[in-house]
């Protein structure tokens, strides 16, 4: 494993990404850019009601419209089986996944798909939707997590019962799951506490907000093979989910991942792919579907709204002795919110001996939630980091000092069980404490500084990499991780480092399910970590093969040189005798024998044929990521509007393979957190219709709403990775909401218990 102080030739540099020219010239092919001969355009008809039974669907008029080639409903899909399957980041119930893609007997949210059309152009397809007649029996919607948890609430799924602390019960309820994590004796801990703070928080539904809408192009070929092109974070996930939903063997489904315009967790589960596939099967032509922005908001997978209670207790000296939390998350129309992850992360920055965390996964008549960058953790951190701030204030402690005193270290136990390996939380706190930002006093009226920390566990999962060696000493690296944020570069850099060749000599390509072995999603902060690990191992495989061939050749030479002599026995050359450093292979038993990497590749054909290195990885040594953020704000006392004056994000990045893209991940996550904190929310009317389903009124930050975002990379290498990589992509979104809440408090004297902290809300608090 690499030493923390080792010097690298490629790692840590900032080369241009290999797909750069394609992306800045507009040449790169994203899913929406796909064009196939004879391609039709598809559109989906969606429920106008948040909760209703489908009584009938009449598609005759739509089918008769000139230009329409086919119309489908759930009848054109195989009947979905009620069973679990491992189809992506989490296990998934096939029936529920299929029902979400195309409603069966009930619609469970406004926007739920009920039918679809393929026509010669998108305008005709849209007109055809207006000709499909659907009869609904409208039912009362449940639109709030607390309402949904009540015994008298209307049930979304008549047969769903609560799984209570791991046991299936008979209780029919909108609560799909109640989980609990327990460590020590919280009741006793609170008895020992000198100060106890207990608060409740509400967060609104927010969306990943990727700029590129969902898309899928499908060709159900005459030979029964299904081809799919899509902007996805995981081609293999699409392959498996589509195969399950459509009743096909996996080998009959080929998925090509196009370039993707942002995902953040929202482009993992399928929505359009099976629909496009069935349309293609019936029409006998390729079909492309692209979502409109309204569909993006109403019919994809936002992150849960939540209600969270947090209680924390500390001794006078600042030591945290007890913590409790109750996380109630809206799963949307089908169970499976990230409440479990929220439970795992909520108190993780701290070593607290007594903790209990309860999590509730609750269905409501809103779109089924999906992952959004550190899913579940931001909601939780808003609550816990605000309470920690309040504790610090009550104890007269600096808010970073209370974190330094209680910060989690290697060996401390999380509430969900695992003990931490080598982690870098305290390093982020120290770096924040010592940063010039923190040392600079913030002066002026209506201004305040807030800090907050966050944790995300990151994942490892599976990747495959193949390295094909070219005769001129360059290599082609084949991988299956869609490149959303520069991972072609970070993976190629690791391969180059291991091979001892320049970065420019590694040509990475991202291929689909026909071209590479199983590779999990680009998500979970795993790509540079796990696919990079596989690239490193594949590179080692290349070197090993070269060592073997050189050993054979040099041993053959020794055979000739020492023919018939007794010394021959002592000069057998095995692969262990072939060393490699700085691009040169040397023979340990004969200083006169050496070959450069390029010389070996030039002679491959004469030394045994082509060289292909390969590796699969499923690394266990995942390093969790911690972050500590500092933000200065000014609040307009007359309007409640918050202006961000300065933002510093400190993060343990393990080892930054390509620092620019690590900085970019941090800045991007911070700004998403800022939007979450200050303005983003799904606004629903009483009928369960989202009223702000456009970028006009779903307000994401613009260039004018932000200053530069300073990033401080603290590198505590992860011992579980050859280059010390820790996933970096997700934890940046965890602290900002709490950091801003704490800053607004310092500026106004009012504690924020609701997100977003939009001007109207802040104003109402100021006027209390």
């Amino acid at each position: 494993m690499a030493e923390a102080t080792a010097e690298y030739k490629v790692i840590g540099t900032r080369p241009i990404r290999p797909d750069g020219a394609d992306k800045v010239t507009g040449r790169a092919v994203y899913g929406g850019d796909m064009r196939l001969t004879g391609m039709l355009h598809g559109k989906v008809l969606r429920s106008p009601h948040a909760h209703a039974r489908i009584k009938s669907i009449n598609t005759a008029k739509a089918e008769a419209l000139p230009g329409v080639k086919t119309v489908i409903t759930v009848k054109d899909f195989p009947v979905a089986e009620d069973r679990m399957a491992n189809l992506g980041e989490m296990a998934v119930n096939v029936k529920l996944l299929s029902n979400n893609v195309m409603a069966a007997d009930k619609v469970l949210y406004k926007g739920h798909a009920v039918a679809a059309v393929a026509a010669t152009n998108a305008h005709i397809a849209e007109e055809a939707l207006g000709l499909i007649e659907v009869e609904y029996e409208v039912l009362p919607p449940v639109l709030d997590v607390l309402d949904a948890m009540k015994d008298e609430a209307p049930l979304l799924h008549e047969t769903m019962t609560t799984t209570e602390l791991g046991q299936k019960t008979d209780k029919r309820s909108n609560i799909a799951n109640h989980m609990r994590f327990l460590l020590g004796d919280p009741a006793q801990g609170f008895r020992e506490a000198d100060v106890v703070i207990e608060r409740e928080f509400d967060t609104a539904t927010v969306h990943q907000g990727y700029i590129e809408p969902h898309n899928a192009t499908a060709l159900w070929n005459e030979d029964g093979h299904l081809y799919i092109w899509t902007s996805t974070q995981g081609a293999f996930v699409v392959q498996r989910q589509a195969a399950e939903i459509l009743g096909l063997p996996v080998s009959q489904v080929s998925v090509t991942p196009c370039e993707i315009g942002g995902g953040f967790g929202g482009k993992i589960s399928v929505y359009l792919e099976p629909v496009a596939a069935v349309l293609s099967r019936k029409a006998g032509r390729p079909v492309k579907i692209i979502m409109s922005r309204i569909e993006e908001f109403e019919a994809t997978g936002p992150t849960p709204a939540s209600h969270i209670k947090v209680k924390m207790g500390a001794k006078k000296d600042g030591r945290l002795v007890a913590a409790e939390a109750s996380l109630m998350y809206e799963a949307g129309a089908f169970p499976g919110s990230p409440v479990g992850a929220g439970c795992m992360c909520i108190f993780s920055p701290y070593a607290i001996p007594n903790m209990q965390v309860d999590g509730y996964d609750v269905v409501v008549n809103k779109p089924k939630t999906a992952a959004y960058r550190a899913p579940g953790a931001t909601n939780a951190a808003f609550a816990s980091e605000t309470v920690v701030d309040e504790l610090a204030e009550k104890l007269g402690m600096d808010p970073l000092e209370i974190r330094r005193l209680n910060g989690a270290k290697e060996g401390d136990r999380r509430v969900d069980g695992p003990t931490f390996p080598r982690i870098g939380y305290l390093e982020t706190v120290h770096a924040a404490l010592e940063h010039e930002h923190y040392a600079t006093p913030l002066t002026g009226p209506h201004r305040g500084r807030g800090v907050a920390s966050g944790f995300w566990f990151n994942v490892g999962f599976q990747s495959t990499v193949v390295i094909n060696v070219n005769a001129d000493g360059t290599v082609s690296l084949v991988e299956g991780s869609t490149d959303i944020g520069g991972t072609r570069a970070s993976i190629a850099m690791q391969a180059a480092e291991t091979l001892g060749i320049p970065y420019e000599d590694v040509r990475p390509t991202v291929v689909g399910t026909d071209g590479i072995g199983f590779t999990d999603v680009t998500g979970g902060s795993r790509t540079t970590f796990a696919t990079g690990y596989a690239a490193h191992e594949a590179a080692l495989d290349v070197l090993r093969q070269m060592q073997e061939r050189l050993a054979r050749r040099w041993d053959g030479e020794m055979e000739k040189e020492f023919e018939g002599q007794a010394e021959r026995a002592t000069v057998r050359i095995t692969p262990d005798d072939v060393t490699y450093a700085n691009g040169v292979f040397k023979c340990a038993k004969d200083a006169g024998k050496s070959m450069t990497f390029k010389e070996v590749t030039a002679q491959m054909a004469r030394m045994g044929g082509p060289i292909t290195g390969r590796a699969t990885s499923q690394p266990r040594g995942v390093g969790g990521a911690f972050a500590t953020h500092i933000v200065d704000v000014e609040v307009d006392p007359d309007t409640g509007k918050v202006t961000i004056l300065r933002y510093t994000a400190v993060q343990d990045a393990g080892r930054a393979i390509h620092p620019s893209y690590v900085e970019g991940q941090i800045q991007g996550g911070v700004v998403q957190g800022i939007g979450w904190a200050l303005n983003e929310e799904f606004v629903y009317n009483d009928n369960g219709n989202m009223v702000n389903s456009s970028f006009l009124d779903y307000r994401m930050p613009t260039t004018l709403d932000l200053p530069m975002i300073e990033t401080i990379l603290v590198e505590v290498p992860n011992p579980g990775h050859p280059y010390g990589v820790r996933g970096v992509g997700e934890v940046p979104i965890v602290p900002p909401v709490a950091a801003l809440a704490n800053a607004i408090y310092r500026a106004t004297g009012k504690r924020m218990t609701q997100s977003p902290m939009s001007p109207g809300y802040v104003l109402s608090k100021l006027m209390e």
Partner: protein
Amino acid sequence: MQAFDYVAARTVDEAVSLLAAKGAQARVLAGGTDLIVQLREGRRNLELVVDVKKIPDVNVLTYDPQNGLQLGAAVPCHRIYGDATIARAYPGLMDAFQLVGGTQIQGRASVGGNLCNSSPAADTTPTLIAHRATCVIASPTGRREVPVEQFCTGPGRNVLGNGEFLVALRFPAPPKNFGAHYLRFIPRNEMDIAVVGVGSSVVLGDDGATVSAARIALGAVAPTPLLVEEAAAALIGKPISDATIAQAASAAQAAARPISDMRGTIEQRRHLTGVLTRRTLQGAMARARGETLSHA
């Protein structure tokens, strides 16, 4: 989007007869930043779109210190604030014209179009009112003029009758010691629809203090933009001061009839009306005294 016919009219008369023939099934296209969105979202169903951008009258942009500003209804915002002379003469108008959406929107959107879309929250209308603009309307019977404060009659509705369209806006030359300012409140710093907008103007006497004329117009707090006479009355004839400004702000708040919707509540809007009236009057006062306001 529903299919429609498209015609690029060459003269005012041609546009008028096309519009008169189709009535509510036809609409004028200038910058398209409202109309195309409405067509795409199915909020309007039209048989005919009449593109007026080739008609010279709607592209006029002339100013002289005696006759004031002639602003063709289809002139895109970027052309107006891009004209240094006009920008210098009417900073209170530029406040609003630079806010209509982002740069891309301003490359197409026109003040005339913003007015004819007649949203209660339009950014241009309050400042048009504060500047005493006059609407020049072409109709089947000739031309007629309407003071801009009478143009809007309800959300999305205005005085334009069958076959009529807005050709231009006329602004008097700013009198001596005139100052105007428009501010809106939005949650972000750009791209949002105004939660509340206020356009104020004052004319000061040569003493630089006594208010001889004033106009305070509110946006997004009523079904139409509101010209609040009572707010002006609180200022006129007296030296302008924090106290009179506060009175004008109270009068503006009293006149506001906001609703609660996804962009703001009644309480918030009423409160912001007072805040923005105060701030725009201070800005107008400063400009009337010859000061320049710093860019937000």
